[in-house]
């Protein structure tokens, strides 16, 4: 997606990079199907393919939550600025 600046103070900060990584990570992990298309190791009889993806539901929740917290802090720091 094209995030074009709209006249704002420093757009890229370390915190924002971390937020972006948190939001992009699920795409890399889920779209790289070859990395998890295998049966072993199984978990309680469920092949790796299935439990790994369901585990990513939890991981991506944690990542989104982190992004949310960081974003809130970022915004608080900028209150009164352009945003």
């Amino acid at each position, binding site marked *: 997606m094209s995030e074009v600046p709209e006249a704002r103070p420093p757009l890229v900060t370390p915190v924002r990079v971390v937020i972006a990584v948190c939001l992009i990570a699920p795409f890399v992990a889920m779209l790289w199907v070859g990395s998890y*298309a295998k049966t072993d190791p199984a978990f309680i009889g469920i092949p790796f393919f299935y439990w790994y993806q369901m585990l990513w539901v939890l991981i991506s*929740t944690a990542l989104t939550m982190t*992004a949310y917290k960081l974003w809130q802090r970022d915004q608080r720091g900028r209150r009164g600025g352009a945003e």
Partner: protein
Amino acid sequence: MKDGVNGVALGVFIFFFLAVTVMGFLAARWRKAESEASLDEWGLGGRSFGTWITWFLLGGDLYTAYTFVAVPAAIYAAGAAGFFAVPYTILVYPLIFTFLPRLWSVSHRHGYVTTSDFVRGRFGSKGLSLAVAVTGILATMPYIALQLVGIQAVLDVMGIGGGTDSNWFVKDLPLLIAFGVLAAYTYSSGLRAPALIAFVKDALIYIVIAVAIIYIPIKLGGFDDIFSAANDKFTKAGAGAIVSPPAAQWTYATLALGSALALFMYPHSITATLSSKSREVIRRNTTILPLYSLMLGLLALLGFMAIKSGVDVTNPQLAIPQLFEDMFPSWFAGVAFAAIGIGALVPAAIMSIAAANLFTRNIYKDFIKPDATPEQETKVSKLVSLLVKVGALVFVLTMDKTVAINFQLLGGIWILQTFPALVGGLFTRWFHRWALLAGWATGMIYGTIAAYDVASPTNPGQKHFGGSNAEIPGIGEIGYIGLTAFVLNVLVTVVLTFVLKALKAPEGVDETNPRDYTADAGDPGVEVELPPATAGASH
């Protein structure tokens, strides 16, 4: 398997349906607003819904016949390939997080109620707004069709009509009943009925999910046995696999990504999101919603359990209802069927109302009758919501019902083509309105032709619209048509934008300004309650 009517299950099913119907009609009186005949009242429940109900409604988008019938059926028939729904829903959350708060802000600043409103305001283009509205209405139809197939599957397994050797009337009886109930329902009480029923529906669904994913695997001897039975079946059939083979991985990834990009373009998802109280609520909720994905994953595994338990149906859509009938005592099977049935009815109602509102606001009022009275608007909306359902019925009757997930994927091909205008517009004003329109047309035409050329793998009689995957030009792998069309769409949009800017083609008037996209409740000029769907004639 089809040994007559299951009396107890049917009794319980009818009981819940009657209960819900009574609630539906009572809903018309619930928190009644001033004017009965206004579109706002019928189509948006008077907009007096709090965050709670809004999110129940949004949950209604996620737990549909798609979750309960189509995805497990795809797993039952093809194995791993059907599991793409899980990464799909995982990818939805970062996407929501990134762009929906901006949409919320700009909509609440300018009183936009639909995506078409926003596109017109941003690009000053009635043509583009019309394209977005038409696409939304068209794409919603197959999605509703999927819900009808879900209700039909349940009725079929209970022994009401259906079967392949009976005459056309008996064969399609469950479908006609499903259609009749849905139509009567939305026509009489608008959005209030589904909102109220959403509580019953979600409660029923949670009970059924909890029981199904704990009780059935235990009874079947654990996941080891379930997966080895599935593996045997796929090996013997020579089709399907429990792990995506390399040749299917492109398809898997493109289906997941394409579906994720498409979900929040649908009119009904946008309506639900815009009704939340503040932009922060949207972000906060994205951190809770993934629970839905986990449930979806567990429900998907029911497809394998159906194989293990020996369910043998030629129409995979019947696999899960059949599994419930085989595994549960009759009365609980009835509860489960009611959960699926109501779980399909509610979203179908919400979707058809959202599509009808879109027509009334962005086509009827903008192009046909700008000075329509509220009574006329409500009348048109009700009529269109009926027509949308008839459209859905046409999809069901003409397409292969045994791969119902295709209905949703076909809708996705179309709705995805509105992404560049909408999401692009949220972040940048760089795209030229004519380029966006040309890109949209390219995507729509390519997507429709490519889907038209796919013959059904399971039904030799159906030569067109039999699937949603085709070879990606230039890459040679098989991928989701919707995503290929989307990439073409973006390419055309970008190239033409350069050309049009070089030619100095007139840009539309942008009525928004950058600060509108980050405003939150409490900021100046932000209306927490959006105006009624019909008050926007001012721009």
